[in-house]
């Protein structure tokens, strides 16, 4: 079922539904409200002014001669270049995080034991319907890891943004992984949780507003790594190779 269509039934809603929606849903953020209010006041004010001017029939105001601002344009282009180069540098840092570890941990045969599998499709072949990667039963993942040794990984689009999920079996211990990521500059949080009925450790590594990695260790030895938003498959594979 397409969930977006599910809520489409609220389009062109009747008065009672509108009342219920207004009570149930916070449609705007405080910042958004502030902008809308100020815009409303300004529009009302300019409407009042233009009406008064028209009634007097004397002056027309509110227009001004357009002057191109060359300095503003140059500053805008410079700012855009800074943002683009900053983004490129951030991606470079992400790919090259903890270079010493990459060198020591990547084995020479890293490409030979790597298997890329569309695990959702594999589940569906077995008659299992899964909506999202994180809902795939742990037992199924464990079986897949045994069938396809070492790594089962697939990519996934969520909110029209790119994500990837990768499953491993006992690649490194939680402590080893923690040491690995602690060498970077990023913010790391760790908490205990239950995943698929297993006690698990969850690491969340936030590099910046657009990039976040979550890693879950289940007590059965399965490690799930996900959350590579806005990254290309090649870059994801590069990070996965550091875990191997």
């Amino acid at each position, binding site marked *: 079922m397409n969930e977006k269509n599910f809520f489409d039934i609220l389009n062109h809603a009747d*008065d009672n*539904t509108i009342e219920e929606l207004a009570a149930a849903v916070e449609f705007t953020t405080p910042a958004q409200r502030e902008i*809308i209010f100020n815009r409303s006041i300004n529009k009302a004010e300019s409407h009042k002014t233009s009406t008064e001017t028209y009634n007097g029939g004397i002056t027309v105001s509110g227009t001004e001669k357009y002057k191109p601002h060359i300095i503003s344009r140059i500053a805008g282009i410079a700012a855009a270049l800074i943002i683009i180069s900053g983004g490129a540098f951030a991606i470079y840092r992400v790919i090259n995080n903890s270079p010493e570890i990459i060198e020591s941990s990547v084995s020479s045969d890293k490409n030979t034991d790597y298997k890329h599998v569309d695990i959702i499709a594999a589940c569906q072949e077995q008659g299992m319907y899964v909506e999202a990667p994180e809902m795939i039963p742990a037992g199924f993942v464990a079986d897949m890891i045994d069938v396809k040794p070492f790594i089962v990984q697939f990519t996934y689009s969520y909110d029209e943004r790119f994500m990837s999920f990768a499953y491993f079996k006992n690649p490194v211990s939680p402590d080893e992984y923690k040491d690995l990521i602690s060498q970077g500059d990023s913010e790391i949080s760790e908490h205990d949780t239950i995943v698929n009925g297993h006690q698990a450790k969850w690491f969340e590594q*936030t590099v910046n507003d657009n990039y976040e990695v*979550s890693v879950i260790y289940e007590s059965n030895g399965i490690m799930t790594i996900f959350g590579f938003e806005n990254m290309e498959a090649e870059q994801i594979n590069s990070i996965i190779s550091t875990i191997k």
Partner: protein
Amino acid sequence: MTDKDYRNELEKSEYNAQKMLFDEYINYVYAIVFSLLRGVAEREDIDECVSDTFSDIFSGYDKNSAFDGEMKGFIAIIARRNAANYYKRLSSKGITSPLEELNAAPDTTDLSREFEKAEIRRLLIQKTLELGEPDSTIVFQKYFCGRNSKEIAKIVSLKPSAVRMRCTRAVRRLKEMLSEAGIGEEDIQ
């Protein structure tokens, strides 16, 4: 808020009166506009339509009127009219506006279908609320308001990854709850 309340506030301070009215009705106006424009307009257009609505209310209100009643009806009419105008402007296919559709005399089969739809809508909202916080907010914001995980994460103070995970589970639970209430996939088409 009644006309009398608003006029009393206007006498003291126009800005404060307008802010008070805005704070009280922003969600209501947004719900009206959003429900009509969802699917044809971008969020910026919807925000623009809402600000046009309040601007019309502020500038069009007759301070000297002796009328006293709830402001809600007056506000709803302006919101619907503006949303219908936006809808016409934004719909490139020249289809009828929702306002015209609402004013058209429905036949009896439409009435029975509308009654059924109203009940499904009520149940959908009720069951989504029964998910509890923050899941209900996550589901409404994602599937009704169209916000992405990152935007929702800021609203509910969670990580985007946690929002995605909760959302998937919440939707699964919602489907089960609706199914128990007798609402299936075919009912919402």
